[in-house]
């Protein structure tokens, strides 16, 4: 990446956020919007920082719900993708069922989950996983279905058994696709956690804090919690992008990183 490109990559997003905040500020100030309807950006940020001792543990909970749910969903999704690819019958039996799961409104899912799993972190994890697994399954399935047939043939000629063909060729070939599913899932995950918190919370939660703020006409609190939720979503998305960057170096590099095992630089007589 050239220096110019790097600068653009860093300052481009920052600039767009600044512009967005500017528009927000302009609407609130020039539109004479009352502070109990919508706060100025700074007031929303202030509502977070000045209440951080209350918000920090709630934020931490939401992060946990998001991350646990995401991991469960991603693993389950990848597993299902493989199952669907490997067992053709499953594509007919399971696929409609999987689509059905996504057609159920998440809101309808919440009450039975609470009854079975209680008010803790579990029902949120299930809801997040429920949302996240699907794009992952679809992308893994897509990736596996599009592995070069000739490459698989070649591997057979080389005498590779099906497990090796899967591990050495199909899995890495599906990784690029997998990440597109993981990224979509990452953007949805925090939404799932918040829906879960609204549906059932013990003690407090970010969603409930927001609801209370809304009930108190504390728009700064409402927007502030929204900022936190958004930040969780963005940071998680960026982490997934970072993982993709590390996991798929061939997508943007011409040589392997030197420290990676199995791709050592040429060392004669080692």
């Amino acid at each position: 990446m050239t220096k110019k490109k790097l600068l653009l990559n860093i300052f481009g997003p920052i600039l767009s956020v600044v512009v967005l905040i500017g528009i927000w500020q302009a609407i609130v100030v020039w539109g004479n919007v009352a502070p109990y309807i919508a706060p100025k950006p700074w007031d929303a940020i202030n509502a977070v920082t000045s209440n951080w001792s209350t918000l920090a543990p709630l934020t931490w909970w939401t992060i946990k719900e998001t991350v646990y749910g995401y991991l469960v969903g991603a693993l389950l999704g990848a597993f299902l993708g493989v199952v669907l690819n490997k067992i053709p019958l499953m594509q007919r039996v399971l696929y409609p069922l999987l689509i059905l799961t996504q057609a159920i409104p998440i809101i309808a899912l919440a009450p039975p989950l609470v009854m079975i799993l209680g008010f803790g972190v579990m029902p949120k994890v299930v809801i997040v996983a429920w949302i996240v697994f699907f794009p992952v399954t679809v992308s893994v399935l897509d990736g596996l279905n599009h592995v070069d047939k000739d490459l698989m043939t070649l591997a057979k000629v080389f005498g590779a058994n099906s497990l090796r063909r899967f591990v050495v060729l199909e899995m890495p070939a599906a990784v690029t696709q997998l990440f597109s599913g993981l990224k979509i899932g990452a953007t949805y995950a925090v939404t799932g956690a918040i829906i879960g918190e609204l549906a059932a919370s013990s003690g407090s939660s970010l969603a409930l804090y927001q609801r209370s703020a809304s009930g108190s006409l504390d728009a700064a609190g409402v927007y502030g919690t929204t900022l936190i939720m958004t930040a969780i979503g963005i940071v998680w998305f960026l982490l997934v992008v970072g993982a993709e960057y590390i996991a798929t170096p061939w997508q943007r590099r011409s040589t392997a990183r030197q420290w990676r095992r199995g791709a050592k630089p040429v060392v004669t007589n080692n």
Partner: protein
Amino acid sequence: MKRNFLSLSVAGAVLALSSVTVLSAGSIASASTLTAVKFVYDFPGPDMEIIPVVVAQKEGFFKANGLNVSVEFPPSTSLTTQLLTTGSGDIGFITTSDMAVAVEAKAPVISVANYSMTNNWGLFAKPGSTLTLASLKGKKIFSWGDTWTNAMIPFVLKKAHLKASDITIVTGANDTPLLMNGTINFTTSTTNYAIPGITEATKSAPVGIVGAAAGVPNVPVWVYAVTHNYANQHGKNVRAFLKAIKAATIWASSHQTKAVADFMAAYPKSGYSKFYSTKGWALTVPLLTNSAGKYFVQTNKQWTTLATALKSVKLIKSVPAPSTYYTNKFLP
């Protein structure tokens, strides 16, 4: 305080749309002579507390007072005051605690009439359970997470000599099933919602500690409110609205079966059974008049008591003059 918070929000939005269309279609002929008023409920979906408005629509009380009233439901709870201030609604139905926080937030709204006169809020449990202040410690108690419930729970704890950490407050989408399968021990609600709901599910009346017994201040729970602007510019409409509502309320109190039928016809998909709405309305009627048998009348004392109580649990910072909250000048 009301049930089915989440699932109703969707249904509510749909209903709000359909009822608006139906009403506007039905009133084309008289549109020129009637003044349009937008009424905003306190909850995303309709329930039996809206009966006075429905009856006034259906039985012609609004028309007789020159009004064409449409009903809007907020996308979620506690947004009604905001909808009034942005002009999306004219007359709102809110809790007195909503009113207090609105004034604290300097939202230019004012209460124009009490809906109910007493505090019928409390804790409820399955029939046959032990529910006393002494039995609260270590229990899971359901809350809707709304301002009113947030305001009341500290009073219960105070009276029970408990700390907040002595109980677990849980929040969710619907309390009755959770109560039935023991996921929660007690729920918080008002008599007119809790009793029909639990009775319907268990075939017998719940146990409860309500009002003074629960340690909560005895103040009205719901009021009708408008913005200062609307009060100043359309006082005539407010007066006409309350006049129609009073007539409709009296009619609905003496024709309860008919009133519930009007509600069920207006909102066939409210999610509430005829049993629930009938029982709920029957329990609501006695709440609507004060000890002198009068509707609507607000007092300095009720607002001072409420504001003092809310300040003591830190929901508001200061107790303003009671006149900041209300006016009786539009009463019929």
